[in-house]
């Protein structure tokens, strides 16, 4: 069988196991947390009989194993279940987890996409140029700037951007909070997301840029590059045509990691710009112990990691003839 297809199938299989393990671990962890959705929601108003009525209504009175198996059964059929919230004492109509997650996931993917669209080409270009002019003034400067931006906490970067770019004292170019109207056009959305996207770009560019630079420089020491140089190729051509194809594997790995971060790890940036992404949804769910939503978000996060790592591996194999055509 083609090694590419074999790897994909194998990884997807492992991915499913990963998801299963994640869901089990998560159920156990949530079980350890003090309190539950009923006591969280009622807070100080939690008298014992009110809590008991609430638990009965959302099914928290059943044993945890039974609840988990029920959830797993639904999940296998592609049903994310219902959130505990919005459970009315009269109608009992609860919000479907899928309905809660879908719009948030779209927002998050949009923001991540926008940030990646800027960050990935930028990082690759900066990294290649840094490898080309390594140890020069340009190299030092790019390193200094990107390392500074990655070293500052992301909320700080966000506040600084908001201060200078969304304040009539300096420049009021972008909105200070990213409110996305339902049904807004793609350009309105991009404008609303400008500051969080810029923040994320500043946070992830350094990692990818330095990995590009390091792996290209590493290859530049190999004999075949020396050969290329000896036959008289230009330095630019040596790097783009000879070094880069062999550097794709490590670079795509780092890009995959950063893209995964853009989707699962940007809750702080979402908070700073009041952007309704999936990270805030998960934090809300954890705070209120809305277990079906926690599980739903976790499944998506784990799925994102599995798929992105898989794509990185596919790129690594596809760009390496030795892996693609093994003897």
């Amino acid at each position: 069988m083609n090694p590419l297809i074999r790897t994909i199938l194998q990884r997807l299989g492992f991915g499913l196991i990963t998801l299963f393990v994640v869901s089990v671990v998560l159920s156990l962890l949530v079980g350890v947390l003090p309190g539950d959705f009923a006591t969280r929601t009622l807070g100080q108003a939690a008298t014992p009989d009110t809590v008991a009525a609430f638990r009965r209504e959302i099914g928290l009175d059943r044993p945890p194993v039974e609840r988990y198996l029920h959830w797993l059964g639904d999940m296998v059929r592609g049903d994310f279940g219902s959130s505990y919230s919005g459970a009315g004492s009269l109608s009992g109509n609860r919000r479907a987890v899928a309905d809660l997650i879908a719009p948030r996931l779209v927002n998050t993917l949009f923001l991540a996409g926008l940030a990646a669209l800027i960050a990935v080409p930028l990082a690759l270009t900066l990294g290649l140029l840094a490898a080309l002019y390594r140890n020069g003034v340009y190299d030092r400067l790019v390193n200094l700037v990107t390392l500074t931006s990655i070293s500052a906490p992301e909320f700080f970067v966000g506040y600084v951007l908001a201060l200078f770019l969304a304040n009539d004292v300096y420049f009021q170019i972008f909105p200070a909070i990213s409110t996305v109207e339902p049904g807004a056009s793609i350009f309105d959305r991009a404008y609303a997301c400008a500051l969080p996207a810029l923040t994320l770009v500043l946070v992830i560019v350094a990692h990818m840029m330095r990995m590009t630079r390091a792996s290209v420089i590493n290859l530049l020491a190999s004999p075949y590059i020396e050969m290329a140089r000896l036959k008289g190729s230009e330095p630019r051509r040596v790097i783009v045509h000879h070094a880069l194809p062999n550097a794709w594997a490590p670079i795509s790995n780092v890009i995959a990691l950063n893209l995964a971060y853009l989707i699962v790890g940007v809750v702080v940036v979402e908070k700073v710009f009041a952007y309704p992404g999936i990270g805030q949804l998960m934090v809300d769910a954890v705070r209120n112990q809305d277990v079906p939503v926690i599980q739903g978000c976790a499944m998506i996060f784990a799925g994102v990691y599995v798929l992105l790592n898989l794509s990185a591996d596919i790129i690594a194999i596809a760009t390496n003839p030795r892996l693609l055509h093994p003897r």
Partner: protein
Amino acid sequence: MTELEYWTQQIKKGRINRREFLGRAAALGVTTALATTMLADAGVAATPKKGGSAKFGLAHGATTDTLDPASYPDTATQVPFWGGMSNSLTEVDADGNITPDVVESMEPTDDAKSWIFKIRKGVTFHNGKDLTADDVIASYRHHMGADSKSAAKSLLAAVSDIKADGKGTVVFSLSGANADFPYICSDYHIPIMPAKPDGTADWQSGVRTGPFVFGAWEPGVRASLKRNPNYHKEGKPYFDEVEFLSIADVAARTNALNAGEVDWIGRADLKTLNLLKKNPKVEITEVTGYGHYVFPMQVTIAPFDNVDVRTALKWAINREDIAKKVFLGHATPGNDNPIAPTVKFATNPEPVYKYDPEKAKFHLKKAGMSNLKVDLSVADAAFTGAVDAATLYKEHAKAAGIDLNIVREPDDGYWDNVWLKKAWCGGYWSGRPTCDWMLTTVYAKGAAWNETQWANPRFNDLLVTARGETDDKKRKGMYAEMQQLIHDDGGVIVLVFNNYVEAASKKLAHNKIAPNWECDGLKIAERWWFA
């Protein structure tokens, strides 16, 4: 500063209303015409103007929020869905008085053991349906009964029966006399909702009677409402549209106000308030609310069973210091009386507890001790700043020979595992608009939330008598005695009453701000307008 300037400042800050200002100005010999001009200069519009679309930045909001008033956990639901969309039977005005809202009158009978509410004529729901007694009954039943998970369940526990008397009259029967029952009816958990054919309340549709009609809502993100053209209050509301954005991060909230993306923000950042004040387009409003932070001691557990130990601990804390350092001056020091100064019948019992290590030592000695070592359990889940306040208290108490051991509890599950369980801990009360409500909820013998386990026979006798007493003069005396008893004998240390500090664009105008809840009594959408 002349006296006139002083009153101009006061009205700017929202501490007095327009009519009071005109009265003061007249007393100082200023003509009404001139005073009105001054008001306009001070940014107080003569008559509220209609129109405009206002955006409010709220400090709360979660995806778990629901339209169901059985759980309106914070301002993200209370301000749009109660204050914006709904009415209760009654409302508390800016001076703390109870006034009818969707009712015309409320009369006690049978020595306040039963209350008759006559529904205001012409009140309609947003779908055009007339408000009738059945709707009121369904809305109340929504919170009552064994299966209720409503936060208002215990509030309505004393209601034994509700009956309709024709379409326009509702009769509440109570299990005991309660002269303050109309206040309970003003609670934000009990908006009036239309009844469904099966007699249950329809909370799902968002159809209510209030100043604004439900528009769009994304839980934890935004809610937008449109003006109700058929609102029963003449001329109100003033805005055409209101939008509420959840901006949980305080710096983001401040940015949004400074950038003009919202017109108002709740819970302004106290640490950077002085910087925000420098913005000439922003007005800071501050009112002392009913909410207060407490350290309740369980008086059934040693050493707190000794009144002298309790008194020693009351003298050993420097409340001014805590108000200044932990709450940055935006709080009013307490005097171990849980009734806020703005509540009717509130007193300030003597002697006022001030930091006095000598008096603390004296009482400790009287209790037969030369030093004392006690645990105080706190977490910031009790109230923001609880750990800092306890740490300062530890330093204050040292001088009196009292060694406080501060036990840091986890935030998670604090209200389940620490509050009401540990002998001494931190706690918070959002306060209640009447003496009876507050005292019955927390200080009555056997109350579910009696966090001090205090059971003073004289206090409990007075509480029942005062509740059924309709003569204000007699009630005043009784409530004064009860507050004195809590102050002298009770197990609660009231640190401070918190101030509601909010910030608004000067494009907005308002009258005196209500102290009963934040966001102008949660009714900012109805009460404010564009200047």
